[in-house]
């Protein structure tokens, strides 16, 4: 009823018809409509942190029995806008010992991949910018590129704390990327596709007319894969309890210590956009995407369910951050290589048997 996908498809079809009537070639019209779609995606991505920063401040405040931002607007809802304006007008300081070019490149290399990552993400049914056949792998591969930006920031700042943060980031992000990719393999094996859209729509249906056929409800393999994905996603997004690269109390926030003004804002944008991306991936891969958990007579559209699931997982991320203490570096690595890795392999073998049984 309130589905956005048919509306947008209709709009762009109308747009191409309008362009054709004005004598623009169909190829050119297609190109222009693609450019508009790209801009819509980028706008969506850059507006996410504005919401998430406010949510994070409120959630942390309530967990610590505070009120959080209250002054700017009703319940402080304009706080993030005030912060953004402040950051945009702040002086851009480049430290004397810094490598100017690398220092300039770092925030760009961190932010650029995250904008691309949202391309194969289905927000509800049919609302997907580009349905890439290798969607899951695409997101995992491109988001791994941000690590290079963090390394550039750590190295280019000319500061030992930043350097340590960069080194920790490289070791941690590289290690946790492996269980993260491996935890997605069972989902891909079961549904036989790497397109997020196909995976999300394959999860529609009910067992005994009650339990949704989401991947997380498959016995053992679903829960194991979801847990491994969740834990390694928290590590990949540098959030507590895995925030070793930016540990405030020991590294004075690590790789972004020397960044101020808009460059710092870009690091912030990337962090929250990645949190949302990880949550959205979890929703599409494990929680059925835009599938409603119970029938609502079609009043509530699928994108609403998708965003609800995504925000539930974002809340989980924040819950972790404000309730768990930070891990030690060696334990962090041990946990990844000696616990998550073997269990994700076990899970892949189990899924193999499961698929074999189902084929029989």
């Amino acid at each position, binding site marked *: 009823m309130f589905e956005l996908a048919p509306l947008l498809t209709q709009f762009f079809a109308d747009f191409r018809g309008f362009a054709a009537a004005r004598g623009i*070639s169909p*190829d050119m019209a297609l190109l222009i409509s693609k450019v508009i779609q790209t801009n819509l995606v980028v706008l969506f991505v850059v507006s996410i942190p504005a919401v998430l920063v406010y949510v994070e401040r409120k959630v942390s405040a309530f967990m610590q029995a505070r009120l959080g931002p209250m002054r700017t607007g009703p319940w402080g809802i304009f706080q993030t806008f005030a912060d953004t304006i402040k950051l945009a007008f702040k002086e851009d300081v480049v430290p004397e010992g810094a490598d100017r070019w690398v220092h300039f490149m770092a925030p760009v290399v961190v932010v650029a991949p995250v904008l691309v990552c949202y391309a194969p993400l289905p927000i509800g049914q049919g609302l997907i910018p580009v349905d890439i056949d290798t969607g899951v792998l695409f997101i995992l591969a491109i988001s791994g590129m941000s*690590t290079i930006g963090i*390394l550039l920031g750590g*190295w280019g700042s000319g500061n030992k704390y930043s350097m340590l943060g960069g080194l920790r980031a490289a070791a941690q992000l*590289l290690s946790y*990327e492996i269980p993260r990719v491996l935890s997605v393999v069972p989902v891909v094996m079961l549904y036989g596709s*790497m397109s997020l859209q196909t995976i999300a729509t394959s999860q529609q249906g009910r067992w005994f007319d009650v339990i949704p056929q989401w991947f997380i409800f498959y016995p053992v393999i679903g829960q194991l894969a979801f847990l491994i994905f969740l834990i390694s996603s928290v590590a990949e997004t540098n959030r507590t309890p895995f925030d070793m690269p930016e540990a405030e109390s020991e590294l004075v926030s690590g790789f972004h210590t020397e960044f101020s003004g808009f460059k710092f804002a870009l690091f912030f944008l990337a962090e929250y956009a990645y949190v949302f991306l990880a949550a959205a991936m979890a929703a599409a891969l494990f929680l059925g995407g835009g599938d409603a958990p119970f029938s609502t007579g079609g009043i509530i559209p699928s994108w609403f369910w998708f965003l609800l699931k995504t925000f539930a997982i974002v809340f989980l991320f924040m819950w972790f951050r404000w309730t768990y203490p930070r891990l030690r570096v060696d334990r962090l690595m041990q946990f990844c290589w000696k616990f998550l890795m073997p269990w994700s392999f076990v899970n892949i073998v189990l899924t193999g048997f499961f698929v074999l049984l189902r084929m029989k």
Partner: protein
Amino acid sequence: MLENLPSIVFYVLAAALVLSAIAVVVLPSIFYSAVALGAGLTVMAGIFVLFGADFLGVAQILVYVGGVMIIMLFVIMLSPQTRDNFQKHSLNQSLRGILLALASAVSLLQGFQVFAGMGDSVRDMVPTSAGLGRLLLGDLLLPFEAISLILLVALVGAALFGQDKLS
């Protein structure tokens, strides 16, 4: 103009690839060279995707840019040389480099002549991952497993070298 779009994109990507490859060799600091190499590998993934090898392009970014490059930067950051310690090229090194480059240029040209007659290279995107998977776990299973065995040997060797020396 739009009919030539794939060619335009190809030439832009190829120019970027050549520029970054030159930058890898010419830049004074080894850290810069590594970053330029990362840029070159990313551009190469773009060329793969342009020629319809979508899985190869994504795998290139996942393995080379997201894995090998980061380990390289990690090693450079851990190695004792400081940022201002620029690398120097000796004459001997340059000679060997030129010889190697000539040899690979000749073999690339030979290879190009074999593949040039094999038809149109730019075509519509056809997903390649399913076909690749069938090949790797079907016809090419034995070579695939042999390569993974070599990697295993390399890993065991690395673990042996990294082990603490007990007296």
